[in-house]
């Protein structure tokens, strides 16, 4: 954006910057606390109220969680499921969203309504489990992906973005002999990169956070994704269970371990966004139109 050099413009920019900086600081402080907590000793964590910079540094928590290969295996599962899942979901979602974005399609309203309806009404855990079981997906990685392949919310948002593309572009492409598939892949998708990036991020985060489906559909604990491990440690460390303090010789995991697992399980997905950010740059649409 060309700079506005007037006094009003500068004041506006300064106020805006300061406000955002304060907001960013407030949002990030607790996360810094968690990161700092993971690098210190449980004694310091218990003694001080809100650690931001550890006085005593310690890698004990990380040594503990990396001392077996479980976390690597779980991380591998999560990365794999997230990558494959996001691809599958984006493919199916984009196809459906594009089809439904065309206003001249007979029956689109019925289908659209059907999709919205599924956001409101759910059959419940057990009937869905039966479908997954009858399709033979139990104990397969596919059970983490296929039963949640399309999110109604994401599909509707993507369809909305597609609808905003000027119809004239599609018309002219059609005259040039492009098929509907051609239009989608050669014109619509490249023009919608911010939207594609956004929806991909939404899917990636959903797959990364997979927990309940893994517990329900996977009997083999070797296939569990990282969230199962994360939640298990967080719950144990928070002492929510009354009954399992059978033997005090093995106390619940330390708070530092809890924080270290949060850091390890969150960092990979946090890193996705900065990579996608370039697609949010201005003029992405114009640039591709010219290209």
């Amino acid at each position: 954006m060309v700079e506005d050099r007037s006094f009003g413009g500068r004041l506006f920019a300064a106020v805006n910057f300061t406000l955002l900086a304060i907001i960013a600081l407030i949002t990030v402080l607790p996360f810094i606390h968690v990161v700092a907590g993971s690098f210190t000793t449980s004694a310091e964590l218990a003694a001080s109220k809100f650690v931001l910079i550890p006085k005593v540094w310690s890698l004990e928590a990380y040594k503990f969680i990396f001392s077996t290969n479980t976390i690597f295996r779980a991380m591998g599962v999560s990365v794999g499921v997230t990558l494959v899942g996001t691809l599958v979901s984006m493919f199916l979602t984009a196809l459906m969203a594009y089809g439904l974005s065309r206003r001249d399609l007979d029956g689109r309203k019925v289908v659209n309504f059907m999709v919205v309806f599924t956001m409101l009404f759910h059959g419940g855990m057990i009937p869905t489990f039966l479908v997954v079981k009858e399709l033979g997906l139990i104990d397969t990685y596919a059970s983490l992906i296929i039963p949640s392949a399309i999110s109604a919310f994401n599909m509707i948002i993507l369809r909305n973005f597609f609808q905003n593309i000027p119809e004239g572009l599609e018309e002219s492409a059609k005259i040039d002999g492009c098929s509907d598939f051609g239009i989608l892949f050669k014109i619509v998708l490249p023009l919608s990169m911010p939207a594609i990036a956004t929806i991909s991020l939404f899917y990636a985060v959903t797959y990364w956070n997979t927990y309940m489906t893994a517990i329900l559909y996977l009997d083999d604990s070797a296939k569990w994704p990282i969230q199962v491990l994360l939640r298990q440690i967080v719950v144990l460390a928070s002492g929510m269970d009354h009954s399992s303090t059978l033997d005090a010789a093995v106390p619940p995991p330390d708070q530092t371990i809890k924080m270290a697992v949060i850091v390890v399980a969150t960092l990979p997905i946090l890193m996705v966004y900065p990579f996608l950010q370039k697609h949010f740059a201005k003029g992405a649409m114009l640039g591709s139109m010219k290209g």
Partner: protein
Amino acid sequence: MVMKKKSFSIMLAALLTLSVMLTACGGNEKPAAAPAGGDTAKGAESDAPTEIKIMLPLNTSETPPDTIKKELEKLTNTKLTYQFFPADTYEEKLNSSFATSSLPQVTYLKNQTTFIQMKDAIKDGQFWEIGPYLSEFPNLSKLKPEILNNTKVDGKLYSLYIGRPLARQGIIYRKDWADKLNLAPPANVDELFEMAKAFTEQDPDGNGVKDTIGVVDRNELTYGAFKTVSSWFGTPNGWGEKDGQLQPEFTFPQYIDTMDFFKKLRDGGYMNQDFAATSKTDAVKMFTSGKAGLYIGGSMQDIDSLNKDLIKNVPEAVLDTHSMVAGPDGKFAQWMIPGYNNVVLFPKGAVKDEAELKKILAFFDKMMTPEVANLMFWGIEGVHYTVEDGKAKPTDDKELIEREVKGYKDSVIGESETNGMYEPYNILPGRIHAEELLLENVKVGVPDPTAPLDSATYTEKGVELQQIITDATYKYMYGQIDKAGFEKEVENWKKRGGDKIIEEYNAAYKK
């Protein structure tokens, strides 16, 4: 257009299976879809290892490796498949497996609450009744009859129990503070109050600032301080007899006395002000950071882990345990749990016949020998623990135990009196004291008379109704309602189904 073809075949498959699915929900007569490891027909010869699939809650951060399992298989001549599922969401897994008839041969529940929920299904005949077979197994028949009785459904036994000491609760307190202020362990509830007051007002940590409190409590009436103190006051355990009828504990005057006790503690600032919103972690943190002097109501065996964290922060701290606190009438009392923490059931859908059931029971019979019980509870001797003075001393490598042994600990049937496993070897004086107090507690133990009883209304909405009482109790302790207000809530409880619960329990009690 591969996509299209594929999806059509999926659709076809889906439509075909739809009909199957709708009937599959009928459940009962359908042969279990995944007959839990029993696919290959077993010969009758006893030397072939029995294949058993076991489902149980996971209480460690990750599933344990095969170390213990392999030894266990050798000792019991079995081939075991352990399926662990996170304890936190175990009910969901249990319910969905149950509804789709895919429970394995051996199904551990999670706690007493899941057991109560399962009672309907048990009455319906979904699980094997094992009572008649018990006498055939020398070790299983050692299980304590009074606890077995607590786990019976309609007078029949369907489950084996995982034992727990009957009364582990008491006080863990700062002995160094008490010594400094010349206070003896509280002999009665008044002295307990005075101790809390002194810990708050007389600067026991000697830093010149009034920054300590007496009692730290949390948002739990049963496992927090309240229930333990209320039993010292003489309140019955859950239900008590009044004029020949069972009545809930909160209709007894001692319950009100206990609330007054905590109200006074709170008003005086002798306990944490936010206790109604304080989680266990936060309560423990307050204690281990050296801010509070009395931790009441938890298991006294927790002193080891509290001590470990406390001395990191306050190296000179000394902890001790105590539980013999007399009520205003000078009498001692301790509430007791029904003696079990969890039970294990044998679904008929997976265990096909009597012969298979007996083989599985044989496995559990062997589990109740000292050799196997020690393996599952303590691990491998020399690796996970050593024996000193005939007691088990766990290795200092706590992570190794957490990783390899802890997952199996909560699945050992019985208790050390019946399965002969080692008692723990303790070093901390407070812990040794705790073990003595555990035995003292039982001598004045008060059982819950409704433990073996059944009430349909309680099963349907007992938890929801209990909420009314819990809320009223906290509100009373915070001074928001008075005695009349509390009694109004009790009336409310009765009106909304409590009366029926009283009626049903009394009907069952008379039998």
